[in-house]
């Protein structure tokens, strides 16, 4: 469908000899933006609503809009290598390199600049959807436990319940010594409770 067609209408040539030579090699670029159905069902970019899509040539030198069927065209474009960008909220489009050839009118050469994929016709499709918001994770016990507060509680519980278990497995002899030491020191310290600390 995409075609770069010469603008030179026969009529124009015959009736306007004073037409400036700069416009003599002006071409049209026609293309289409296609947003696949099924994409964009998540809210902001309403599917099928193409009225807020803009197509930009060479960084905003020309701006055009889409027709209801997604077609767009740029008029009066000189031969050369151009860049087409599509701006659509909710979608990521790769810019497209378009060669408009003066020698070979009617031939389109287009390639996505992001991944250097050649296009046989100028049909632009989004590379991916863009999700602008973080998605709130649903409430779960895991997230609660993973938070710093949860970890603190977990640590405390571990100390409270696992430590006595560790102590139980100790040699009763050593245990008594440790307890005596504790009594003699008066203030129980964490290091003395540990097996390593208890040894001396």
């Amino acid at each position, binding site marked *: 469908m995409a075609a770069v067609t010469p*603008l030179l209408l026969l009529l124009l040539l015959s*009736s*306007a000899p*004073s*037409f400036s030579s700069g*416009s003599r090699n002006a071409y049209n670029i026609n293309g289409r933006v296609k947003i696949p159905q099924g994409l964009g069902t998540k809210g*902001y970019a309403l599917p099928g*609503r*193409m*009225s807020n899509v803009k197509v*930009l040539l*060479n*960084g*905003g*030198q*020309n*701006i055009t*809009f889409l*027709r*209801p069927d997604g077609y767009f*065209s740029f*008029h*009066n*474009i*000189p031969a*050369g*290598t151009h*860049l087409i*960008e599509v*701006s*659509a*909220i*909710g979608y*990521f489009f790769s*810019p497209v*390199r378009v060669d*408009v050839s003066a020698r070979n009118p009617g031939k389109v050469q287009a390639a996505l*600049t*992001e991944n250097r994929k050649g296009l046989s016709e100028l049909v632009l499709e989004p590379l991916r959807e*863009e*999700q*602008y*918001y*973080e*998605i*709130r994770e*649903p*409430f779960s016990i895991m997230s609660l436990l*993973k*938070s*710093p*507060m*949860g*970890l*603190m*509680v977990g640590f*405390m*519980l571990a100390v*409270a319940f696992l430590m006595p278990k560790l102590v139980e497995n100790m040699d009763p002899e050593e245990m008594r010594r440790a307890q005596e030491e504790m009594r003699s020191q008066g203030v129980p310290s964490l290091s003395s409770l*540990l097996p390593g600390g208890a040894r001396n």
Partner: protein
Amino acid sequence: MAIRSFLILFILFFFSSLNPILSLYEDQVGLVDWHQQYLGKVKQAVFHTHKTGRKRVVVSTEENVVALLDLRQGEIFWRHVLGSNDVIDGIDIALGKYVITLSSGGSILRAWNLPDGQMVWESSLRGPKHSKSLLLVPTNLKIEKDNIVIIFSNGRLNAVSCIDGEVLWEKDFEGESLEVQQVIQPPGSNLIYVVGFASSSLFEMYQINALNGELLKHESAAFSGGFLGEVSPVFSETVVALDSTGLILLTVSFQNGISFQQTPISNLVKDSFGPAKIIPSSVTGIFAIKMNAVTIVIRVTDENKLEVVEKTNHETSISDALPVSEGQQAFALVQRAGPEIHLRVKLAHNWDDNLLKESVKMDQHRGLVHKIYINNYIRTDKSYGFRALIVMEDHSLLLLQQGEIVWSREDGLASIIDVTTSELPVERDGVSVAKVEHNLFEWLKGHMLKLKGTLMLASPQDIAAIQSMRLKNSEKSKMTRDHNGFRKLLIVLTRAGKLFALHTGDGHIVWSYLLQSLQKSKVCQHPIGLNLYKWQVPHHHAMDENPSVLVIGKCGPSSDAPGALSFVDTYTGKELSSLSLVHSVAQVIPLPYTDSTEQRLHLLIDADKHAHLYPKTPEAISIFERELSNIYWYSVEDDNGIIKGHALRGKCTGEVADEVCFDTRELWSIVFPSESEKIIATVTRKLNEVVHTQAKVIADQEVMYKYISRNLLFVATVALKGSGEIGSVTPEESWLVAYLIDTVTGRILHRVTHHGSQGPVHAVFSENWVVYHYFNLKAHRYEMSVIEIYDQSRADNKDVWKLVLGKHNLTSPISLYSRPDVITKSQSYFFTHSVKTIAVTSTTKGITSKQLLIGTIGDQVLALDKRFLDPRRTVNPTQAEKEEGIIPLTDSLPIIPQSYVTHALRVEGLRGIITVPAKLESTTLVFAHGVDLFFTQLAPSRTYDSLTDDFNYALLLITIVALVAAISLTWTLSERKELQENWR
């Protein structure tokens, strides 16, 4: 050992549990950000009120916006911003369902579906030469059931089908010098008259069949006096023109051959004031002329006699004709008189009676009425009522109905020239406006809702209630300073010469002031606002003074036009004083010195390279004279490719005997070869930027010293051929050169050439780095490069012994005249989008890491971490480098959708991004403006110094309770155990 490893694990968990949330959740939209949509100054409006349904109006504006507005509230139904070189020439409604726009000098015709703004068709019209562009949608003119649109543009008359935009016929007007002035369609006929002037003294008339473009009649007649300006059609076969002197009115009738009738203006009004100008109107039999400030409304009688019906000194606007009941036309006149505007609606053939006469109170700061559009409706008693849409001098748009302002839109805010900020007043006793929660029950209910929300138990209604509660938070729009510095005033200067103060909390207008110094007056015909500066920021000595801003403008676009200053109090929004300068303003340099009342010293450089100091007080002069030898600046002449450095020499000599005038001298100049290099961008650091530390600790405990100088200038030049648009050059004939220049000495510190690249270049300079965006023609992609500059002269200070023995050079004075020993590092990356502007975040102390704010071509603002633009990135960073935070090198910069600051919104017509530090170090305030305004708070390294809004207090409470419970439980358990031990 076990404990240590456990602690490490714990800390690791602690940090990994904090998600890297730089972005928003959807329900946080509107909490700290606001978005306002505007249109710009309306230049044409067409009502659509025929059907019984919604009453709407289509407008086109000077910001190139075409939009459909609701007539009831002034809300935007839809809006399209056309490209900046696709200027709208005319709009109309066709078939009752399409909005037709003619743009780009009459070469693009588009039809938009009226209800939803979807483009229906687009056609490209071309012609042999440039000419006026005229759009005409004839009523009741059909070609095979198809309505047509008549367009005259580029010397060609086209008839275009309304249904699909196809050109049905076209007719060229090739006459060498023919300037078509009007295309007239007599109502109810199939004829079109094309009238114009040829070779300045020939009046030409073409009669054309609208159905097929056939030329029916061509007549021309010479008038020796020549013609001036526009013509105004008064009847379908009569127009009024002015002769070349502007003193004689010509009534040209072309019904049966062309006949001229001359009426000297002096015959109509006794005291004539020199050349007149015709104000075209579409009202049958009525037109207006303007001489200086006097507006004269003239009626043309059936015998082509002219009669003055009104002469007034007030600025008068006349609406277009509005057809009311069969064959009758109504039109409106509006004038400003003091605090009121007077609106009169009359019938075209009956001047003496008013259909409607109203006076409406109008804010003085809206200025004069510039345009009026009227529309009628049928009242319940079957009589006609009129509503008027008026455009004021400050570009605002208002709807008047029954003597009242129904709604108003501040569309001047669509064209902001400059922005600055001001602090709000400090909260004192008695000025508090905080609202206390109504009662305990309400309070409890609110918190219950919030708890439900956090536990994800809330129903949709509850969620909506929570959302509205959060958005309505009165805290953020209070009129006093807050602890975190989030509440400020954004002072903006618009193209209309109006100053607005916007509250950062919710974006409401606190005050607005139409600056008289920037209004059209007898002395100054085309005033232009230039810049805003902070004039007085009281904090230490002058706490009782109000802060004020300095507005700089000039009279006319030429470089030697005299300047104008005004000083505006930012608390009250009143002008403190204003000055009309005798000299021009080429450059303004805010100096880093303030006087005892905290007024900042400003140096204004005029076109003759004299420097003028403001304020003009003896104190300011004495401060300034002390620092005379430390003041340097540069100027860029991009047409000639020269950058010059300047310094001051002393008091002015010669005819200008002024205390505050100083002579300057040129220190250095850099001349770029004009045939190979053209300056396209220059960027310096922001004057108020704060740098926390010069040292940068890198991976292996090494230190690098940033080269931090306020006097660095980044310059980008391109090859002359490459200065055009993309697609106009081949990679071989284009290159881009980037320079880092010291503006005191003129020394080029760094120069790099990018072969096969071209502009436009957008750059940002901060601390010791510059980032710039340009187009790489070889890869045909955009690129961004970073240059970082480091000071090597301090590199050997790392030796501790030297520091101890005092042999370091840390305390030696820095002079830019000593040869700097610098190294630069740079790297380039691909970037997907075109860029409109780049800014960088700024914080109070400069500790927080930086983010680049990139305004993309899609009018979104992308926040990109500076870490992605670090020249020390490598493909495989070592372990140490990874710990330092170096990201593995990729060839292109990532675009993460969640890091769009503007989330799912567009800042249409984006022009600038401004960042202002909040008092809280982690947070920066971002204001993006274009046709739309957008404001948000940003925390580039997350809010590490304060709890965020969604901090989970419930969880904290639960944890404390759980800990207390656990302690008491273990206590009792151990008690019991001890008891058992003792019993054993």
